[in-house]
């Protein structure tokens, strides 16, 4: 089970990434996924250079093939990281969406 304490500690990290924009610096399309992400396959994962200069990695959501390119502008969105275990805490976090 995902640790609820870890989720709680990470809240601030998540919150301060909300409402940011950036550009894709690299991308890949995951077709063979870890167990908890299998349902979402295929999904893109991107490395984004955010407006403040930081590099952030995350899934790309609401995407079309044409969005998978270096330089694509993206914004941060709040989503479920993955489906939790049947009794577990839901992990929310930051993903990216094409602008």
């Amino acid at each position, binding site marked *: 089970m995902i640790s609820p304490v870890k989720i709680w500690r990470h809240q601030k990290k998540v919150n301060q990434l909300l409402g940011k924009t950036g550009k894709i*610096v*690299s*991308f*890949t*399309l*995951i*077709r*063979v*996924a*870890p*167990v*908890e*992400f*299998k349902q*979402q396959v295929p*999904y893109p*994962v991107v*490395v*984004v250079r955010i407006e403040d200069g*930081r*590099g*952030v*990695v*995350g*899934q790309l959501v609401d995407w079309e093939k044409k969005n998978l390119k*270096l330089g694509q502008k993206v914004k941060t969105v709040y989503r479920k*990281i*993955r489906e939790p275990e049947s009794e577990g805490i839901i*992990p929310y*976090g930051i993903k990216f969406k094409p602008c």
Partner: protein
Amino acid sequence: MQIAVLSGATTKFGELWEQSPRSLAQEVVSQAIEQAGIEKKETQALFVGNMLAGILGGQENIGAFFADELGLEVPAVRIEGACASGGLAVHQAVLSLLTGKYQTVLILGIEKMTDYKPEEVAQALMAAGSDEERKAGLTFPGLYALMAQAHMEKYGTTEEEMAAVAVKNHFHACLNEKAQFKKEITIDDVLKSAKVADPLKLLDCSPISDGATAIILSSKFKVQSSRDKPVFIAASAVATDTLALADREDLISLKATKKAARKAYQMAGLGPEDIDLAEVHDCFTIAEIMAMEDLGFFEKGKAGQAILKGETKIGGKGPIINSSGGLKAGGHPVGATGVKQIVEVFNQLSGQAGKRQVKGAKIGLAHNVAGSGALAVVHILSNL
């Protein structure tokens, strides 16, 4: 002080269903001891390189576990550095000899991965990455795919050039009875294989393997016969970079490799042009291309073409890269890889590489990487 490699032995790498970690260790350590021509009790310490015994097998206390299994009542420690566990174990062993406290030590790199489902293993391997990378649903192929994409974008590296790495390493593996895949493949085979994390395909990726490798290092040695060429450790260097890929300065090279290589060359008083052969960390084909550049063998962006031209294949211009078949075709039992790389270089420099012998090899390099490049270990061996 000179540190010599007294012996090196490895099991076959592959799906070794009938072998347990204990039996793998027994096989390889007894061979190493016999080849070194020493008594078991002369080994004064045991260094074990292993990543997944705890995560997958539920077994920690690995130093003691193997000391016990091998009947060695000596100081024993397990060193973990993800896929660089083996190389780090060698490094720590070298350091221990340099202190003068020990004169002869045993290093065991070992991994048992095929007892578990591939997705369990894939998940376990992501322990080498960062929390954000795991939350992003990344896998190891995904991490290296991100680097491949950037490398392709910046230097025009092609999927064919990456495929050529796998083709070459399979060719080498056919000459290595311990290799996991003794089957040649073509560039077309690689390009047609199923995509795992675009642009990397199945045949761009090293496999899941079992295996063990052992070496004995000593600072007091006797040349066994006039025919044997002693092989020495000329350099042992480690460097770290950020854990997370997104925190790196760039995605197209591994700074840790560059730093460790620079330190190693300095320690040995050598340069990349002096290296005759190298075992590099080709967990994915793109990793070998990047290593060729980061280790200083080829200019940035030029490695891909060099591979296509066959420069790093046995018989080629050199340096000869991954004569053992590398991780891709040799197999990649994580903790064992770094130690096996040393054994391959040792065999080459001591003229024992049989069909794979690189003629006149004098100086060899071993390059072992943790995760997506958070840490790198570079060893230089010499028979001069």
